[in-house]
């Protein structure tokens, strides 16, 4: 009977010892990663105290941020006010008013341009459908992400807020450029 107890005791202490050993091995393995990583250079982005225009934030190319309205190589607006983005938008947040280009005032290269182009960022879900829908690649997702506001009325972006700067030809020159005729 004593022997039997002894045998059982031995078996139990063996289990305890083995689990301690396993735990120590686990911790060692875990800590080895920790210690190894401690010696690597820091990878955390230092937003918002980092350098550059994004203040340290690093964004993937495919990131869908605030929209940009693009211009073509002549500096004219690419958007032709086809309303396809507005039709595609699941949250119905794009508002466009179209107007006709005239010889004196040429805004886009087609017959029509967007006189008003608003996106309501209260509602936009950054799904990118508008970008998919656009036949002229006029609307794209930029990388702007600091969109929070304490005043919801500030969140309706207008064309002027989204249109990229005219870095091609100045508008006047573009309007008379032969390549458009």
């Amino acid at each position: 009977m004593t022997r039997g107890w002894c045998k059982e005791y031995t078996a139990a202490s063996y289990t305890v010892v083995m689990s301690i050993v396993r735990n120590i091995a686990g911790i060692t393995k875990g800590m080895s990663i920790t210690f190894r990583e401690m010696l690597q250079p820091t990878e955390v982005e230092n937003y918002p105290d980092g350098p550059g225009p994004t203040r340290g934030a690093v964004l993937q190319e495919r990131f869908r941020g605030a929209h940009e309205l693009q211009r073509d190589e002549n500096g004219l607006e690419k958007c032709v006010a086809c309303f396809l983005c507005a039709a595609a938008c699941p949250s119905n947040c794009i508002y466009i008013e179209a107007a006709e280009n005239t010889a004196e005032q040429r805004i886009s290269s087609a017959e029509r341009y967007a006189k008003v182009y608003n996106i309501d960022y209260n509602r936009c879900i950054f799904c990118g459908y508008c970008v998919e829908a656009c036949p002229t690649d006029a609307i794209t997702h930029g990388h702007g992400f600091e969109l929070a506001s304490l005043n919801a009325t500030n969140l309706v972006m207008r064309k002027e807020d989204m249109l990229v700067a005219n870095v091609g030809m100045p508008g006047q020159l573009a309007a008379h450029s032969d390549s458009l005729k």
Partner: protein
Amino acid sequence: MADVTFTVDGKKLTAPAGTLLIDACRKAGIEIPAFCYYPGLSLQAACRMCVVRLEKVPKLQTACTTPVAEGMVVTTESDEIKQSRKAILELLLGNHPLDCPVCDAGGECELQDMTFKYGAAESKYVEIKQHREEQQWSPVVFFDRPRCILCYRCVRVCGEGMDVWALGVQNRGVSSVISPNGEDHLDCEECGMCIDICPVGALTSGTYRYKTRPWEMNHVATVCTHCGDGCKTTLGVRSVDDGSEIIRGDNRDKSGMNGDFLCIKGRYAFDFTTREDRITKPLVRQPNGQLAEVSWEQALEHAGMKLREIRDTRGGSAIGVIGSTRTTNEEAYLLQKFARTVLNTNNIDHHRTADYASFAAALQGKAGRTASLRDFLTAPAILLLGNDATEQHPALAWNIRSNVRQNRARLYVANHADIKLHRQAKSFLQIPQDGYAALVQYLAGNEAGFDGTEISAAFREALRKEESLVIAFGSEFRGRDIQSLVDFGLGLPNVKFAALGDYANSRGAADMGLMPDLLPGYVPLAAAKHFGEEYPSLPSAPGLDMLQMFDAAEAGNLGALYVVGSNPVERYGIDPTALKNTFLIVQDMFMTETAAVADVIFPAANLYEKSGTVTNTYGDLQLAKKAADKAGVRTDFELIVRLADKMGADPKKLVPFGRGVRADMGQTRGAQSGEADRHAVWLAANNLEPKLSPFDPFAVFDEIQRLVPSYNVSRFELLGGQDKQTRSDLVQIELDPARRDLVLPANDTLFTSGTLGRYSRMLHSVMESRTTKPAETAAD
């Protein structure tokens, strides 16, 4: 014709022999694509999209030119057919610009739909596409040549449908091009039918081009506000800062009496709604003689107080009311009820353009004798007396032309001028301008007073042989002449009549009793027993008519004049100083000659901005739906009720709203409280109205249907958008033979529309652009 049985895609179909295969298939729900085929126009077989396989025929056949035959076995979809259609599309797209994002047709383009269906999106051509600049052919018609697929629909609708022949084809083969009759511009009726019928975006409309896209608009089917034909027009509206704006008129809803047709006014002349000089604030004349903007409350208070004061001191007979020919029936009815029960006066009139009262008197007790506009599309024979329908009743002219073309209807025309419909007439009789009465006598067999010739004898002979005839007569006929015309007509076997009056609701204004001697439904004042309950204090003496009112004003006997949507100062050439001692209230959209001398001006909504019913000149009752909206204006209905309220009258007596059982706020559907809004939506969707508001026109329509038996048509169908013919036999009147003839025809042309037309820039630009100027007409 006898029916034949044939098989399409394994389905047994039956159709009358001679039916075109494409029509028979469409009727059975089998869609066959077609660019050039258009029902009602001649066959072209130009596009080859409709090809089908007929058993035992070696090549694919065009369904649009093949009549069905007994035992025919047809396949409409197979790989072979698909391939053939795809090839056609590839050819069409060979020089087609990739314009869809800016093209007006994008989203409702038949070429887009077909390309989408058959997947011929890529072009096999490598040559550079030939571009041509867009051309402007008229203020309303633009042509973008590379988009044209040469289906010739426009050529045919303009020639066959409109009988204008302004479009044609130049050159042959691949260099074919659609061109206008004036070399670089169009000289035509500017109806825009070609634009509407173009399956692609080649012909575009000057008023709509590049404004928006079809899916961005709401589409409201309502009734045109211009002439007396009552075309159904679909208005495309979108919201803007100050309400909602109409940007397009078309007839995508072809269920109206006008079918495919709209004239220039129905299609384009809605631009008066957005003019910047439209009055949008109430104006009251100040002690210094100037008009100043005031609040609604002040203006209504001021007008109500003055009216009340004049009524109480000088009596109702010192107040006059002039109604409109463009307001709804409910508004016209309410206006005369307001005049008669609140102002206590029968001094009420409107600008009469046809003698509907004599017409009603002539037809009383005769059932089924009034012709609907639809009847002109099917009648085997038509007699047109007077009136130049092409100019004054364009939809009537369209229906007549279609009937002559498609059913070989026999058209008889008697006119003092050589009108355009002469070209469709089987028989044409030119008579002196004052010869209409004598003509009717002559037709009835009384030769005296008419210089009969062989032509006129043949004319009469042919007419008498007609088994079934509809007679339309212009405002040349009044009083006794109408009676004798009707007497003559009733002597023929099966005759229906139509009196042609000029404005959208001229007929309704007369039917609704905007007359000093007649109540709604042409009930004489003396026979108004059944009006007792609704009209407790009806004055029994006939009031002053339009001209007498102005005479009274001149003599200083008219204390106040209330003018709703009318411009009598201009129309009747009244000297404005005649009104200097009269307190004048005007409800209008613009500063008309009458409004300019008013003491109070209320900015009013037009027919496109309100709901209600209107009656065209043939007596067809239709529902007008609110399409547009303009901040600052109110409907005439609301204004009348508010004015009555300010005068201390009980609005509930004027508009029977909220009567009897309490309104159903959804209980019948087991709805919980708080669902009222959603319930209202449900009611609206089912064309029902909770009559909870004193501004609800349908509460007044209830009363109209109760008191005017001829208007007691099925509301279910009426509110569902159908036109319902009012009945002529239920009218009971005895007209005073000495009744004054006050009919003043508007003599509008295709490009004028009374005062309203003056405020349409589009109509002006079309008129200015024309090389052949239309005849001068009254400026109003």
